[in-house]
């Protein structure tokens, strides 16, 4: 069984009096433990596809299945447990809660889940990524790389089965970007987590198990790397 399947996904946005088709009949499948990169130029619809695959947005047509379960028509409350324990998110702009410290940001999904070991797990993860000494710092006190490492820890604390990463190195310099990507890949390999990553960076795409290329809302290529 595939970890994730998308069948004939289409999405159109209306801005003012213009309709813009962002995705047009997109179908794909991601195996368990696979590292999939969705690449394309700016405006190709890759971020939108990621939002729909992860349940953050809804498609106009098509279905999304997670481990065989159709999540297309689930409401927000039904999607919440999936987001909490099945998915992990890493965003280009980090999206850390400004009023929480690094430790609290990482702990948050575990606390939501009622995990009594949330603190211990969070401390271990922060230590793993070299942020032990920044545990009590607020996001505005962290560098870009530190913020993204913190976000990765948050994404992993509940041992999700899929990680969705949208341009995780987009706001980082090349050194930090490389470090963050390596970390992400390392953790993906360690935990056998399925990783769906959106990027326009060819170097990152080269490290994936498979690359799906989007152009004008359509998949124009799907190449597996040996």
């Amino acid at each position, binding site marked *: 069984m595939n970890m994730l399947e998308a069948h004939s996904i289409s999405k159109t946005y209306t801005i003012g009096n213009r309709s813009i088709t962002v995705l047009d009949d997109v179908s794909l499948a991601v195996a368990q433990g696979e590292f999939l990169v969705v690449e394309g130029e700016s405006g190709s619809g890759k971020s939108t596809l990621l*939002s729909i695959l992860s349940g*953050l*947005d809804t498609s106009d047509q098509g279905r999304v299945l997670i481990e065989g379960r159709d999540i297309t028509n689930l409401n927000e409350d039904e999607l*919440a447990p999936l987001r909490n324990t099945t998915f992990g998110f890493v965003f280009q702009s980090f999206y850390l809660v400004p009023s929480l410290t690094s430790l609290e940001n990482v702990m948050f*999904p575990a606390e939501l*889940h009622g995990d009594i070991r949330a603190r211990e797990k969070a401390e271990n993860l922060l230590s793993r990524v070299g942020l032990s000494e920044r545990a009590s710092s607020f996001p505005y006190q962290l560098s870009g790389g530190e913020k993204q490492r913190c976000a990765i820890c948050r994404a992993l604390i509940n041992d999700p089965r899929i990680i969705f990463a949208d341009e995780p190195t987009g706001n980082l310099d090349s050194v930090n970007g490389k470090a963050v990507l390596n970390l992400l890949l390392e953790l993906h390999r360690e935990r056998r987590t399925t990783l769906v990553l959106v990027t326009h960076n060819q170097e990152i795409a080269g490290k994936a198990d498979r690359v799906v290329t989007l152009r004008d809302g359509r998949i124009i290529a799907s190449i597996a790397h040996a």
Partner: protein
Amino acid sequence: MLNIHLIRRQITASTHQSVVLVLCVVLSMITLVSLGGFSRSVHSSFLRDARVLHAADIIIHSHSSISPGLLDSMTALEQRKAIESARVYEFYSVVQTVKNPGRSVRRGKKAGETRTNKREPQLTDETGPVMSSNAESSEGEESLLSSIKVVEPGYPFYGTLELASGRLFREVLTRGSLVVEQSLLDRLHLKVGDKLRVGSAVLTIRDVVLQEPDRPVNFFALGPRVFVSSVDLPSLDLVGKGSRVDYTILVKVRDEKELQRIANQLRDASIKDRERVETYRTADSGVKRFFDNFLFFLNLIGIFTLLLAGIGIQSSLTAFLKEQERTIAIMKAVGSRSRFIITHYFMVVAVLGSIGTIIGIAASFLLEKILPDLFRGLIPPNVELTISKGAVAEGLIIGFLVVIFFTALPLFRLKEVKPHAIFGKEEQRSAQSRSTWLTGSTSVIFFILMVLWRIRELKSSIYFVLGIGLLILTSFICSEGILRLVKKWNARNLILRQALKGLFRPGNATRPIIVTLTASLAVLFSITVVEENLNATFVRSYPPDAPNLFFIDIQPSQKDAFARDLAIPAIYYPVIRGTIMAVNNEPIDREAERHKRGDNLAREFNLTYRENLLEDERLVVGQGLFREDWPEVQVSVLDTVLKMKELKVGDTITFDIQGIPIKARVSSVRTRTRSALQPFFYFVFPDRVLKDAPQTLFTAVRVEKKQIAPLQNRIVSHFPNVSIIDVTETVRVFARVMDRLSSIVRFFTLFSIVAGILIIISSVFATRHTRIQEAVYFTILGARGRFVLAVFTLENLLIGLASSLIAFVLAQTGSWLICRHALDILYKPFLGISILMIIAMTTLVIAVGLGASLAIIRQRPAAFLREQTEE
């Protein structure tokens, strides 16, 4: 050059904050214009014309009959045609309906002649009053304590006494006639043309009085008004030595220029300390004093609300400009000067302020429709409440200045926005900058000047500003303390922890919200608790064994017959009227005494004599009521007197007892062991001193409610000179007035709560982006909608609870001080009502906060993320 499109778009881009700013201006305009309009209406309708309020140029007043010297002086002036005069006698008496007037008799008798109970029936014709002999008078069906006003022709010299028939008062009030208030007809089930027994006379009701010029409101009256012509005074048989009558002579001067000279001449001829001679310019009308005090108090509430509305204006503008920060940064990055930017945003403020002003004035006119219902019973029904141009003009000027001064600081601080704010970098601005202090100080000075302008008394203004300052400072300190404790609290529960963190969200304005709400709630809570204590002391706490019927002006010769008629065991207290002339040989300053708040030594006192303490008295100083080793006249004083003047045993007080000076030495000080409604006397003399003085008797009994009317009828039939006061009825009147007054004050205080709520709404919108961000992040991480809802609810609960609890403590402290030290009544905290108010206010804050946050809670993650990515 102004960019009108930019101004318009900036207003529409920040709609929420614009609306809040407009509403704050509306609130300030309503406060200024409505209260100002009401105040001017009351003044112009019945307080402005002092002549009408006193119905004369010169007013001579005494509690005993006018002295011969003063009368002679008046006669001389009248003969010279320098003045006209009219005598007025006012007193309370029980009037009675008449089933069967019986045989007609007339009694010719001069006022002041000693009365007896024996009357000899005489035949007469049918004009004039009808007297009924005791043998033949029937006991009327119903009786009612009424306010009798006997007037001579000429009254009123100024103003018009309006009658229901529209006829002239002087044509209607002739011999044998009465003019009464409608409420008397209603309560005794009478109509015009029916007969009414007043004292010993039976008179005919000829008309109904609608408006008295010198008594524009009557809510403090113990009974309805009854006008009697002075030619019927002898037949009433109610005015005699010792009777409780207010003697007034109204004087109209022919030549206004002679007013002061004539007043001085009459004053010189009067007996000081017994007779007061004043002109309409200097006389103190009780009604005017009441309304001046009441409007003064409402004015204070209005200024307080204005201050909070001003804080709301500042808060919402600050939030508005915060939303515009990136735009301002871009404008600066492309070369705009601060002056250009400030001018533009000043125009935004001007547009929003103008919209708020127009709506506020319109709302004030609408509110004027409600005010008559709110003030019903307190102002004459024919008073037209309108908003004058003057009130609108004053409101516009002050409102404009309020907007200017409260928006000065946020506008001025636009200078500090740097172009790199484009990048969204938060920069901590120093609160210590010179411009901040300068602008802040100017606003404080403006506020003080505005208070001075509205109140017009330096001392009261200073006290008020200090009081407000103390209230806000205390609220600030308490809120700061609570927030510091909360910040340290490491809650285990995730929802609680998030809610606590939310209080310190950047831009959350938690502190100003708590301070504003606390201050306004403290005022509201205080009014409620003080009112409850007043109710408890004077209305609800009527002891079951306390007397409820008081009989006054019983003649000593009537005592035995009265006691038989009463048929209830009772103590009869002798009452002799007297005033205080001097203490320790130092004459008292009557004018200064009269201006004191509370009781004073310048009034007339009811003196008595006995040799022993009452059941509910005990001695505080002294071995006995009087000392056997002192040969001189002695007097025992109640400890309440010591609050008016410091006295000790051995001091002397010189009394004027019906024209005879009596110097007495203070022999003891008494106190009451219970503050129940039992008779008590400030001054008690030994028997031998006053036993033979002209006196009346007073007694008080407890009667079952259904027995009151028959007993009253029986007594007044046989003893028409006796006034009967149903204390429960009096208490009901007092409670009604108090209830109305406090409702009005609470109504206007609610406006200050509205100001607090507007600040909450402004704060929610100011932090909208951050709240959405948090809500979306929580959702992405797996939190359900109810988690986000619970966090926001708890955050508002904490704000509401903190504000209410601090307000509760401040209100309890303030109320205790007011009750114990200002009103001198027992104090109870009324925890039940206080808790209910805390719950109500906290619920309101939660509802408002959540209401403003609903759209935020419903925000979908994808839409927000998309916006963030696009930026």
